[in-house]
């Protein structure tokens, strides 16, 4: 590491390193400190700021809307862990078979939604859910299931499932690629040995693939939690958190509080709350998953 032969001049050294450090500090560290500071004030963005100590946090702890939003985030995380990781795992297992047709095509196509703007995904699914012109109701009608038709985005009891489906749908491809890469790195000889011992498809998956992919699965769960704690774009577009607060997630609530109700002090406290809860949840998932070797 101490490469004296190629050591740069002092000036060059700083010129290389400083821009990154400065812009990062300015956009990440300073805002973090600012958020902490403003969370102790009652402030609507104007010149008048009133120091209220920990009162914002006191309110936050008892704020039903905030915790309702947190539950909604957890719901999305739960469905995503089962839906994205589960479905992606099954597809990955299937695609590892040599007799499957068009493997490259499936992989490429299933990944497409991952790269698309989630705002567009949100609009697209609003159209899919639309009552008269929607793809979903058209499909149900064609299958003779008219009785299943619902006001997908307007029924408070259904809306959370409706807004979660596009999120799950969009990112299956992401986990599929991770799993396929991980499965391909498993030594083929392990399977050959197992086959000699009489292991068949299902058993191979359960006793070889799954244990050998433990670390990958743990990382996938972590990414899934981190990704869904920040769910915002597509839900903002589809429902804006409604009807009422039934599909409000934490980021939406922070946005509403700060930019619709103009409570920037409280909005900062919510931001801190979101960060603590997200990082906390990731830590907990790591603890439960045990120490991985990465």
């Amino acid at each position, binding site marked *: 590491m101490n490469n004296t032969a190629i050591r740069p001049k002092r000036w060059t050294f700083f010129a*290389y390193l400083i821009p*990154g450090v400065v812009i990062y500090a300015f956009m990440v560290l300073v805002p973090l400190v600012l958020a902490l500071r403003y969370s102790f004030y009652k402030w609507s963005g104007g010149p008048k700021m009133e120091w209220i100590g920990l009162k914002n946090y006191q309110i936050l702890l008892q704020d039903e809307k905030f915790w309702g939003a947190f539950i909604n985030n957890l719901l999305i995380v739960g469905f995503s862990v089962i839906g994205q990781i589960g479905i992606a795992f099954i597809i990955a297992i299937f695609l590892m078979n040599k007799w499957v047709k068009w493997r490259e095509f499936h992989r490429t196509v299933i990944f497409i939604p991952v790269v698309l703007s989630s705002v567009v995904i949100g609009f697209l699914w609003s159209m899919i859910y639309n009552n008269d012109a929607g793809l979903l109701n058209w499909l149900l009608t064609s299958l003779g299931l008219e009785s299943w038709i619902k006001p997908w985005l307007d029924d408070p009891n259904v809306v959370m499932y409706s807004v979660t489906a596009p999120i799950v749908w969009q990112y299956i491809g992401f986990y599929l690629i991770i799993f396929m890469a991980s499965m391909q790195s498993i030594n083929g000889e392990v399977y050959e040995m197992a086959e000699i011992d009489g292991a068949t498809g299902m058993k191979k998956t359960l006793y070889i693939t799954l244990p050998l992919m433990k670390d*990958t699965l743990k990382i996938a769960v972590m990414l899934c939690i981190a990704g869904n704690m920040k769910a915002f774009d597509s839900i903002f577009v589809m429902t804006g958190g409604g009807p009422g607060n039934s599909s409000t997630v934490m980021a939406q609530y922070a946005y509403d509080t700060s930019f619709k109700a103009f409570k920037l002090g409280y909005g900062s406290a919510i931001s801190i709350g979101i960060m603590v809860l997200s990082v906390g949840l990731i830590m907990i998932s790591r603890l439960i998953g045990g120490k991985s070797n990465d």
Partner: protein
Amino acid sequence: MTKLKTLIPRILINLFLFIMSLSCIFPILWMIYSSLKTQQEFNTNIISLPTRLNFQNYIDAFRIGKMDTYFVNSVIVTVLTVVLTVVISFLAAYILARFNFPGRGVIYFMFLAGMLIPVHGLLIPVFVEFKSLGLLDQRITLVLPYVAFNLSMGIFLFENFIKTVPLEVEEAAAIDGSSTTRRVLTIVLPMCLPVISTAIILYFLGAWNEFPFALVLIKSPELRTLPVGLTNFNGQFTVNYPQMMAAMVIVVLPVILTYLAFYKKIMQGMTAGAVKG
């Protein structure tokens, strides 16, 4: 009999995979071909293909919906973000990969933490910071956070790669008297081109699609980027689906074309961190 026993599951699994693929691609295809229909045509039958190609929706989206302005804005913000992020993170990664110095650990950890901090939690603090500094609503407004939030990933991508560039080559050049910048440009940079191209594509996707910061930090319509412009477009043309779809296609088409050209690189790049662990 045994043949049939293996054949039926195989057919079912192939069928299942086709249904999965279809469910991913059909909504996108539906959006693309419906954007070429007139509203009347769409209302008569939402699923049918357009009877003739009608580009009026695109003309209207650009002219009335101001998608042309938003498009140019997105291009400017994205290009600035990509260029600045690549340059800044590459230079910092070079120093971090090659040299040990007091404070290296702290700086390294600081960038590492950036991958863990939920960036959307910074939405409101960044807004407040920009407001007090008068940085809201400028050309550069969105570039600053986009560059900063991408730095962590870039530095790790580059740092790992630069470490694989043999030191001896650089040392030999240094003995021959070539400066650090000369060595970086003529030796390290060319060897890192594969990882740089991956980073360029990933930064492009991130900046092009970013929504929450663009929503909060930009207020004037002349500076809006495509995703926010789209939400505004929706307000004007709620009922005209084909029109709205044309606007959506304008947003995703550059991404889809990039994807089709570089899909292997994109898949690799986006999942690299997770696969390595």
